[in-house]
């Protein structure tokens, strides 16, 4: 992992198309500006990780699991 020290208002360019700017530093919190092509998705990592985890959970069902679920719901 590349680690760079930046002061407020300094920036980083990744490749030719992504720019990261430190816009504000307040205590523990940093405001980061991101300039990237709209086709590139930008996520807060904890959201990305949460979605990845849910995605993986959604792969764990067998065909019978769905049938069983539908049967149980029909009984209610």
């Amino acid at each position, binding site marked *: 992992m590349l680690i760079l020290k930046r002061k407020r208002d300094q920036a980083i360019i990744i490749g030719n198309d992504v720019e990261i700017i430190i816009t504000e530093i307040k205590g523990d919190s940093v405001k980061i500006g991101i300039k990237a092509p709209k086709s590139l998705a930008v996520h807060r990592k904890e959201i990305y990780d949460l979605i*990845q985890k*849910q995605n993986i959970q*959604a792969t764990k069902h067998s065909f019978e699991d769905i049938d069983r679920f539908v049967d149980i719901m029909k009984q209610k």
Partner: protein
Amino acid sequence: MLVNTTRFGNIDVPDDKILDFPNGVIGFKNENNFVILKHKPDSSFFWLQSLSSPDLAFSLLFPFNFVADYTPSLSKEVLNTLKVENAGEVEIYCMVVIPKDVSKMTINLLSPIVVGSKTQTGMQIVLNDSEYSVNHPLANSTSSAEEKAS
């Protein structure tokens, strides 16, 4: 195209049903080819089946029968990636997770799977500006909707 799958055995997927996911799906960026299979003829459940990994299939639900007022917004960039002109040409599905205690079943409204119906292109989008949950509980709404469907 003949595809080997764990849940459905060997299936023949018509060429016009093969879906291209240029960005894969979150956590599975190298899975780029899928087919969407209906679980059973009269079911609201679907499977997003990988064409290259037989065991990989995501459980999907068509969300609008089960969640009132679900209005995912599709940006211009999403419509461009799907190669469609407007949101009317897009099919929307949400992943579901069914734990051992089925009353705790949830649906991912935050990052639906969107597919251009005629363009055979799909992706998973994240509705960052929304209040939608990645694990919205379905217990109460599901039973009445499945009854309506049967």
